[in-house]
């Protein structure tokens, strides 16, 4: 009876142990249960063995068992030594790159930064599993030069929770984490990774300044038209936010990463525009969100529109209306043009969300550019939308009744609602802030001026962010403005160009040689040997 019970316990134990292993492999998220199962199984097996102690003792009386155990122990000891050696070898390895151009080696700048790391840096790669190797090659190199580098690979399709937590937008994103700070990169190139590393290590403040003094949108405002939600999104991405009263400060502070002008209702003063011009010329980045004119008549923002015109962007004196009915799905009327497609641009690369712009004006690149600045379109509305030039018709009877009148200067869609422009800085950049990165200065640095203009400021307000695409679009635009400034330039190491030129005839002969002649000779000599021995 007791034997039977022990037998059952033994089997249960075995099943539990195997089950634990299976759970661990198939359902890693149930790992804790697997651990309990493994312990329970082990206990059951030990219990079974204790029950069978007589048999076990008998077994060990035999010569074979003693020798066998000794063999087993020696194998385990040997294995232990090898494991230890291998463990050490992965930490203390040396590498030699034998390619002519050192294709698989990192640049000196990167190595310098890596060896200087004092605390752990984690690179979290979000991509499809099949693409991991592309990043692994590079990150293994990073890890080779510093024990502080850790790499993690996450497939967002398998671990959607982590992807969501990271607010992931596209595959191939790498989060670089250091002391609670995070930088994101979307490239596996050494230059991108190293720049992200520098940024996250130096913690160079990315500051977004919101201008004030012209009743712009309030970043602290939690009301309907406030910008508090977008403020939170910016803070979440490590941006510091400050307000900027240009009339008082005279110049844009040197630590400004981006200046946002969010829906001013009055125009800027000439000194303010001067400060803005000086800032952009020195490699500054500005985002202008300009709402349509409140009243018909001459522009109420002549200086700001002139500033945009200097950068090749024309702010239309109109309101864009959308009769496509797409807005109705979002619960809005024709005064909220909706965009679902975006002209190719880095900001909207891989972007597939709908965005909507309550009361927007057109914001188009000027044909042929101006001041040798050529802007690119960012957002365009549907073909059923048009730009309504007759503003007086809007203020009177309400948006729903206006109609498309080509003779009054209305233009049929698609209408461009936003534009972006970048150009090499013409003036020397403002001196970097005191906490500037120590690793950067010796490398060549090319400041770039960038301007993004969108014909609406409400899309990023609290009520406009209900449409998910709006938040991401705004953040994409800010990130484009802020992140592309590389601290160091590393030329990617290309493998040497070594190619092969064959005539069709030569190629054919090589095929014959590879597939018939060489194997044929070997087989023939086999037959010859066999024949001779007979």
């Amino acid at each position, binding site marked *: 009876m007791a034997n039977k019970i022990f037998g059952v316990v033994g089997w249960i134990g075995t099943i539990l142990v195997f089950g634990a292993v299976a759970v*661990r*492999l*198939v359902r*890693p998220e149930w*790992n804790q249960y697997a651990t309990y199962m493994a312990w329970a199984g082990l206990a059951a097996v030990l219990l079974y063995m204790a029950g069978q102690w007589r048999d076990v003792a008998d077994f060990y009386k035999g*010569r*074979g068992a003693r*020798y*066998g155990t000794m*063999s087993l122990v*020696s*194998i385990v000891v*040997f*294995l232990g030594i*090898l494991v230890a*050696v*291998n463990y050490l*070898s*992965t930490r*203390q*390895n*040396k*590498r*030699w*790159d*034998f*390619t*002519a151009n050192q*294709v*698989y080696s990192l640049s000196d700048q990167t190595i310098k930064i890596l060896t200087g790391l004092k605390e752990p840096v984690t690179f979290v790669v979000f991509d499809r*599993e099949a693409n*991991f190797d592309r990043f692994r090659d590079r990150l293994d190199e990073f890890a080779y030069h510093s024990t502080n580098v850790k790499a*993690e*690979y996450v497939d967002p399709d*398998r671990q959607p929770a982590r992807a969501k937590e990271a607010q992931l937008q596209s595959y191939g994103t790498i989060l670089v984490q250091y002391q609670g700070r995070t930088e994101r990169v979307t490239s596996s190139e050494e230059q991108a990774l190293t720049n992200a590393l520098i940024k996250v290590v130096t913690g160079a403040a990315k500051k977004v300044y919101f201008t004030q003094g012209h009743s712009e949108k309030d970043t602290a405002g939690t009301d309907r038209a406030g910008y508090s939600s977008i403020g939170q999104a910016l803070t979440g991405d490590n941006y510091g936010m400050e307000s900027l009263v240009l009339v008082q400060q005279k110049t844009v502070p040197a630590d400004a990463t981006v200046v946002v002008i969010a829906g001013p209702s009055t125009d800027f003063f000439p000194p303010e525009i001067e400060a803005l011009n000086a800032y952009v010329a020195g490699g500054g980045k500005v985002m202008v969100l300009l709402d349509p004119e409140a009243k018909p008549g001459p522009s109420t923002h002549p200086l700001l529109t002139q500033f945009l015109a200097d950068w090749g962007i024309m702010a239309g004196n109109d309101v864009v209306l959308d009769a496509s009915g797409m807005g109705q799905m979002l619960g809005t009327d024709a005064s909220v043009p909706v965009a679902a497609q975006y002209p190719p641009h880095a900001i909207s690369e891989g972007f597939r969300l709908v965005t909507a712009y309550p009361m927007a004006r057109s914001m188009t690149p000027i044909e042929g550019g101006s001041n040798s600045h050529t802007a690119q379109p960012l957002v365009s509305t549907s073909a059923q939308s048009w730009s309504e030039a007759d503003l007086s018709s809007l203020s009177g009877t309400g948006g729903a009744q206006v109609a498309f009148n080509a003779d009054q200067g209305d233009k049929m869609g698609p209408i461009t609602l936003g534009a972006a422009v970048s150009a090499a800085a013409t003036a020397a950049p403002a001196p970097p802030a005191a906490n500037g990165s120590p690793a950067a200065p010796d490398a060549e640095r090319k400041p770039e001026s960038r301007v993004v203009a969108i014909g609406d400021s409400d899309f990023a307000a609290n009520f406009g962010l209900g449409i998910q695409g709006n938040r991401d679009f705004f953040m994409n635009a800010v990130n484009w403005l802020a992140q592309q400034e590389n601290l160091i330039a590393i030329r990617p190491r*290309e*493998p*040497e*160009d*070594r*190619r*092969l*030129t*064959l005539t069709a005839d030569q*190629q054919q002969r*090589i*095929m014959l*040689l*590879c*597939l018939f002649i*060489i*194997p044929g000779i*070997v*087989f023939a*000599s*086999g*037959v010859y*040997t*066999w024949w001779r*021995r007979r």
Partner: protein
Amino acid sequence: MRNIAAIAQRELNAYFSSPIGYVLIGFFALLFGWFFYVPLAFFEQQSMQSAMNPGQAMNINQMLVAPAFMNTTVIMLLVFPLITMRTYSEEKRSGTIELLLTSPLTDVEIILGKFIGAMGLYTAMLSITLIHMAILFIFGNPEWKPIATGYLGLLLMGGCFLSLGLFISSLTKNQIVAAMATFAVFLMLWVLNWISTFVGPTTQAVLAHLSITEHFDDFAKGIIDTKHVIYYLSFIAFGLFLTMKSVDSERWRG
């Protein structure tokens, strides 16, 4: 040392006095020829196309030699069980194992001799591929260093498979069983890193380190990393050690 050489000599003679050595090398040459020629034709075509728009570097080492080496490891998977299956099983079946066990040679000498013999056959196989590499040097201008590291990697990786195959062969007197078991174990080691994505990061790192192919990658690219060399050498040592224990058990198991 002389004894080891004698055993190795005897093993090699056994391969080449029967057709088996030639058949193995012949099929290896055929498969390698195929894995070499197909990428070659493709690379040639790509070179022609990229000649129109220069800028993209066409590197024969990266695009042709490294993939050919990687494919060679697949051939190993198929051919090696056939090399090692007979090493011990044959001796056991024909009874010559008794002679070996009672001979004045030590187990270590016999095992090393057999291992070196098998490595000799493998080296003969690999040396066939030097002809293919010569073709590349005649018609193109490949880098020789990454090719050399690739061969070093192939030799080390082949050594792992052979030592493991030797051990499995020492467990059974049935050659077919030995071949099948060897193939199964090779395949397991081969795909070990495939499942590494389902498990936690630590297990993932351990499994990736255990996977034989994972370590070959760098050799094929032209990199020598001490951790890969040490992994392969310890794998070979462990395989030979297991063989030694297995042969030793022959005595006391009776």
